C-alpha cells in the first residue's frame, strides 16, 4: 500500500514538462517604449491636432500681431519670425504659424503615408501571397514583373506619372502605394513561401480546404508579425518618399500643409536661422526615428544577445 501511494504521488509529481519555456512576450526596451510614446503622440496629433492648434493651417498672420510696442513701424515683417507668444514656433515663409501647420500637417503627412502604405500592403500582400500559393507560371510572371518595377527608380517613376497626370492626394497615394507594393510583394511572397510548406498548411490542404481559407486563416496570421515589423519600416520609407516628392514640388495642394513641403517651402529661411523648416523636419525625424526604434526593438535578434556572449 505504501507502494501504491508512492506511485500515485510519482504520477502526480512527474507530469510532462513543458516543451519549451513559453515564447517570450514582446517586451520593449526603454528605447522601444520611447518610440511607442512618440508614435502615440503623433497619432494623437493626427486626431486632435487641428482642434488644439492656435490658428488654421492656411492663416497668414496679421502684421498687427507682430507690432512691437513702442515701435512706429505699423508693418513689421511676418515671415520667418522667431518663436514668440504670437507664434510659439515662429512663422514660415508666408507668415503662417509653424506650430499650427505642423499640427495640421501631421494629419496630411501621416494620413497620406498611412494610406499609401496600407495600399502598398493590400496590393503587395495580395499579389505576393498569390505568387506564393499560385502556380509556377503565375509566380514567375508576377516576380519578373515585380523585378522590373523594382528596378525603375521610384522617384523617376513618380516624376513621369505626376508629369503626365498631375498631383492630387489620391494620385499621390495610389502612386506611392503601387511603387511600394513591389517591395512588399517580395517580402510577402518569401514569407508566404516559407509558411506555405509548413505542416499546418499541408494539414489544411489535406483536409481539402480552399485557397481562401488557407491564405486568410493559415498563412496570413502567421506572416502578420514579420509583416507588421516591415510595415513600420515601409511606413518610414513612404514618409520620406512623400517628403522628397513634396520637396521636388510634387506634393499636396496648398495651402494644405504636409511636413515635406513645409520643409521645402521654408528652406530659404534656414540661412536666417528660422526654425520654420526645422520644425517639420524634426517632426519627420522624430516620427521615423520612433518607428525605427520600435522596429529595431521588435526585431532585435537573438544574434545580438549571442554576440554579447562572445569573448
Amino acid at each position, binding site marked *: 500500500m505504501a507502494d501504491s501511494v508512492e506511485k500515485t504521488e510519482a504520477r502526480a509529481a512527474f507530469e510532462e514538462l513543458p516543451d519549451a519555456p513559453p515564447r517570450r512576450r514582446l517586451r520593449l526596451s526603454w528605447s522601444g517604449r520611447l518610440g511607442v510614446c512618440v508614435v502615440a503622440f503623433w497619432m494623437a496629433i493626427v486626431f486632435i491636432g487641428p482642434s488644439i492648434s492656435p490658428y488654421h493651417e492656411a492663416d497668414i498672420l496679421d502684421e498687427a500681431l507682430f507690432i512691437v510696442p513702442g515701435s512706429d513701424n505699423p508693418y513689421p515683417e511676418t515671415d520667418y519670425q522667431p518663436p514668440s507668444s504670437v507664434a510659439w514656433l515662429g512663422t514660415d515663409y508666408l507668415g503662417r504659424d509653424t506650430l499650427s501647420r505642423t499640427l495640421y500637417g501631421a494629419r496630411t503627412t501621416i494620413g497620406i503615408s498611412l494610406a499609401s502604405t496600407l495600399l502598398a500592403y493590400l496590393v503587395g500582400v495580395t499579389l505576393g501571397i498569390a505568387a506564393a500559393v499560385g502556380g509556377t507560371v503565375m509566380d514567375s510572371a508576377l516576380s519578373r514583373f515585380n523585378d522590373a*518595377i523594382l528596378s*525603375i527608380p521610384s*522617384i*523617376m517613376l513618380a516624376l513621369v506619372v505626376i508629369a503626365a*497626370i498631375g498631383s492630387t492626394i489620391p494620385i499621390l497615394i495610389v502612386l506611392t502605394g503601387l511603387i511600394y507594393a513591389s517591395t512588399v510583394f517580395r517580402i510577402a511572397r518569401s514569407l508566404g513561401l516559407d509558411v506555405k510548406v509548413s505542416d499546418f498548411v499541408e494539414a489544411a490542404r489535406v483536409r481539402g480546404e480552399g485557397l481562401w481559407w488557407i491564405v486568410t486563416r493559415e498563412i496570413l496570421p502567421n506572416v502578420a508579425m514579420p509583416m507588421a515589423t516591415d510595415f513600420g519600416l515601409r511606413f518610414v520609407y513612404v514618409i520620406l518618399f512623400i517628403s522628397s516628392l513634396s*520637396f521636388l514640388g510634387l506634393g499636396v495642394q496648398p495651402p494644405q500643409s504636409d511636413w515635406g513641403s513645409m520643409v521645402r517651402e521654408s528652406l530659404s529661411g534656414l540661412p536666417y536661422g528660422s526654425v520654420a523648416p526645422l520644425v517639420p523636419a524634426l517632426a519627420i525625424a522624430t516620427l521615423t526615428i520612433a518607428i525605427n526604434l520600435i522596429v529595431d526593438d521588435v526585431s532585435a535578434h537573438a*544574434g545580438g544577445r549571442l554576440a554579447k556572449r562572445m569573448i
Partner: protein
Amino acid sequence: MALLNAILRRTALGVVTLFVVSVLIFVGTSILPGDVANIILGQMATPESLAALRAKLGLDEPAHVRYFIWLSDLLTGDLGFSKAGAGAGTIGTPISEMLMPRLVNTLRLATAVAVVAVPFAVTVGLLAAMYPGTKLDRAVTFTTLGLISVPEFLVATLLVLVVAVQLGWLPATAYISGQETGMKLVRALAMPALTLIIVASSQIMRMTRATVLNVMSSPYIEMAILKGVPRKRIILRHALFNAIGPIANVIALNLAYLVSGVVIVETVFAYPGLAKLMIDAVQTRDLPLVQACAMIFCATYIVLIFIADMVSILSNPRLRHPR
C-alpha cells in the same frame, strides 16, 4: 555544375527582367502626352509635316511594331535622337552623345561615393556587430538611425549652409565641365559626394550590422564561442563569410541608388548627372531621352543586383563545391 546552373539561371532571369523593363518603359513613356514627331518638330509642326515625320520614324506603325523597332535599335546601340539642340529643321542630338558626359559625371560621383562609403560603412558596421551594446555600437546605431530617418534634402541643405556658406570650405554647387583634375575635381565633387556618403553609409552600416548579427544567431557561431575562438575571428572568419551574400546585396542596392536615386542631391547641388537629365527630359517631354535614361537606370539596377547575386552564388560553398 550546380554553380554553372545557378549562374545561367540567374543570367536568364536578368535578361527576362530587362525585357519586361523595356516593355514597361515603352508603355510607361507612352502615357506622356505628345509623340516623338511632335516633339522633334516642335513649333514648326503642321499636320502634313507631322504625318510625314511620323511615317519616316515609323510612328504610324502599331505600338507593338514600334516597340520591337525601338528594342532592336536599342540592342544595336542606336538610342535615337533627342530634340535637344535640334535647332530648326535638323533632327536633334544623338542621345548617345548627350548621355555620355552625364553618364561619366554620374559614374564619377558614384565611384567617389562608393570608394569611400563602402569600405567605411562595412568596417564600421562590422565593428558595431562585433561589440554589440557598447558605446561604439550605440553611437553607430543611433547616428545611422537618425540619418536614415531624416530626408536627404535636409542633410544636403544643412551641409551646404554649414560647409559652403558659413565656413566657405567647399563650393556650394558642383558643376563640373569634365576638364577638372586633381584637387579641382575633388573640390567639385566634395559636397554632393559628402551628402551621398552620409546617406549611403548609414544604410550600408545598418544593414551590415543587422546581417552580421543575424548570422550571429546561428548555432555554428555558438559552437565557435564554445571552441574558444576569439571575437575578432568569429566575426571576420565565421560570420562575415556567411554574410557576404546579403552584404553584397545591400551594397548593390545602395550603388544602384547612387546612379538613379540622387535626383534630390543633383538638384540641390546642380550636379549635371543622369538623374537630372532624365527629370529635365520628362519636363520637356523628350520621350526618346526619357526612355534611354530609364533603360540605363533599370539596367544598372539589374546588373548591380545580378553582380550581387553572383557574389552570393560564388560565396556559397554549396554551389562552389557540389557534393
